[in-house]
């Protein structure tokens, strides 16, 4: 067993390296990912070791990155695109929604689209406009795309490899403000499936769902709640499309209460879909409606106000209180 203590960033870097070693068809593409190693250094050293044909510093245009990835995939490659920040994925939106997502269905399965779109997402890093967005709902509403969000180094390391190996397009969301968080990673383990959610903390009173950067927040809330004698079960959703709600349904049938947490604006965020489905499947078990703790329905605010925009421990606990009070 080889274990290493890795940050999420470093785990992604190692995972990418391993994927490139495993399959010569893997090609990384993006702005500043080569010489610079990416603005977050996730691809650090990879161009040096794999060359410019496999780690491609592209011109500055996201539609170009994703659109050429489609062509590379048609030619048998497995392109991994880096979008520099969440807020810059929108120029590529047409390619993602009308081409990447639809090619397999359009061709009746003849043209596979094993493309990965890596996006550092979410706020909390004190950045300027467009650098703190959570665009996952746009993608999860789009049939043909798969969407995952990792929350820790283990999932980062395995998840990026699994996403690259997957035969379908995967929007791979990386919790940028947690890039520097560490954990032990067993490099020889058998990974859990990519498209599954996971109960990361058992509990009896309320089921709390989170993904990406909010998993840590949810766990902190569970700690704090425990001190007040309240027991929260925390589920890391991991996969946003497809959703894997089986563990959630089982949990909610037991707890009768559910709170969903995400940074994205609340209206039509993932919480909406989860609330609708959980309610449908747990109708008779619910003691309270599924409550959502999300970003407010405003454009992501300037950095010095972001703490009041982002869900935090207190807002999660507040929702837990409200759920209990119902």
């Amino acid at each position, binding site marked *: 067993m080889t274990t290493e203590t890795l940050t999420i960033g470093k785990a992604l870097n190692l995972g990418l390296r391993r994927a490139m070693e495993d399959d010569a068809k893997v090609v990384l593409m993006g702005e500043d990912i080569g010489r610079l190693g990416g603005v977050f250094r996730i691809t650090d050293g990879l161009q040096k070791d794999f060359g410019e044909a496999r780690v491609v510093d592209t011109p500055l245009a996201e539609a170009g990155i994703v659109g050429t990835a489609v062509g590379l995939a048609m030619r048998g490659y497995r392109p991994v695109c880096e979008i520099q920040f969440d807020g810059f994925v929108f120029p590529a939106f047409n390619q993602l929604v009308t081409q990447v997502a639809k090619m397999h269905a359009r061709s009746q399965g003849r043209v596979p689209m094993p493309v990965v779109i890596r996006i550092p997402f979410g706020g909390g890093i004190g950045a300027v406009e467009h650098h703190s967005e959570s665009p996952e709902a746009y993608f999860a509403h789009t049939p043909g795309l798969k969407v995952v969000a990792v929350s820790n180094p283990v999932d980062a390391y395995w998840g990026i490899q699994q996403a690259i190996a997957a035969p379908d397009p995967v929007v791979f969301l990386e919790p940028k403000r947690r890039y520097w968080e560490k954990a032990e990673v067993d490099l020889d383990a058998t990974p859990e499936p990519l498209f599954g959610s996971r109960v990361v903390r058992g509990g009896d009173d309320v089921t709390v769902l989170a993904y990406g950067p909010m998993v840590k927040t949810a766990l902190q809330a569970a700690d704090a709640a425990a001190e007040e004698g309240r027991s929260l079960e925390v589920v890391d959703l991991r996969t946003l499309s*497809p959703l894997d709600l089986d563990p959630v349904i089982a949990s909610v049938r037991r707890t009768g209460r559910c709170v969903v947490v995400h940074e994205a604006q609340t209206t039509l965020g993932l919480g909406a879909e989860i609330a609708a489905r959980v309610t449908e499947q747990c109708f008779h078990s619910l003691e309270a409606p599924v409550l959502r703790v999300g970003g407010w329905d405003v454009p992501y605010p300037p950095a010095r106000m972001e703490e009041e925009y982002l869900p935090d421990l207190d807002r999660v606990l507040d929702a837990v209180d409200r759920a209990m009070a119902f």
Partner: protein
Amino acid sequence: MPTVPATAVADPVPGAGAPHLPRQPDLVQLLTPEGQRVEDPVYSIDPTPDELRGLYRDLVLVRRWDTEATALQRQGELGLWASLLGQEAAQVGAGHALRPDDMAFPTYREHGVAWVRGVDPLHVMSLFRGVDNGGWDPVETGFNLYTIVIPAQTLHATGYAMGVQRDGAETAVLAFFGDGATSQGEINEAMIWAASFQAPVVFFCQNNQYAISAPIERQSRVPLYQRAAGFGFPGVRVDGNDVLAVLAVTRAALAAAREGQGPTFIEAFTYRMGAHTTSDDPTRYRLADELEEWKLRDPIARLKVYLAHEGLGDADFFAGVEAEGDELAARIRSGTTSMEPPPAVSMFDAVYAEQTPPLAAQRAEFEAYQASFEGSSS
């Protein structure tokens, strides 16, 4: 009909109004509208009589297909048809320039290229009938599915060409698009990419003078082929109604691409003789005169004159091609009218290569729901 001096065609906004296109440095032509063979200082071609007859046959057959499809749409057998009328030479010429290994990325109008690539016309008809999004295999035929979102496929072509480079293959890629398409951001990105990576892709624009109702002047004040120079690669304008010229120019560009010389922009100067699609009414935005003038530049007539004049085709040959056309039309008609859509439940099956549990559940729900009607024919 206004007479325009020959130089006027080199004008920033050329096009309608002029009589047949005069030869000029700016326009490659090897066969005049009158069916006369001319030479070009750069592009030459020396097709065998068989090749010439083959080109003629393809031109006639794709036009025949097109006519039949328009009729079928009128009769309610197709939801829509995008006619290639007038653009046969541009498409057949470009198609013949491709080698088997090459890859083409069409729009929704390249039936002539489809034909040359060996795609079964019925696999195109199924799209316009609303049965599927095209029934052919893009990889097997070297001909991508039709792309309707303008001009998304030009980036795909460029990416594919980047793959070719990585494979070290002697393969070139041909990206089709219209004059209107040149205004979209994505195609300009495709050209920037292709230039930056010197990708083996040729940008083939059929300037048919219109984007639905918008005349070419709305998209560009200068000839489109000049766009390429701004991105650092060559552009060339060819008489798009001259199948020999199109073949020669495209062949040269594809060869250059294969040899690592990077992209070329080809503007095939042509005309959309019909409506944009069967949903369109061009009388609202263009004059009949213009059409009449372009009729004089018909891509098939000039080759027929040339073949006849050179003794390369006799009455039997021409009649034979017509007969082939009738057969093709009959096959297309019967194949189309008897074409049924797959069971609706199949819409769930190719969304992903790896089916997801929620979608499988939805599929089951759909089937159960469908089944609930069985027997209940009230």
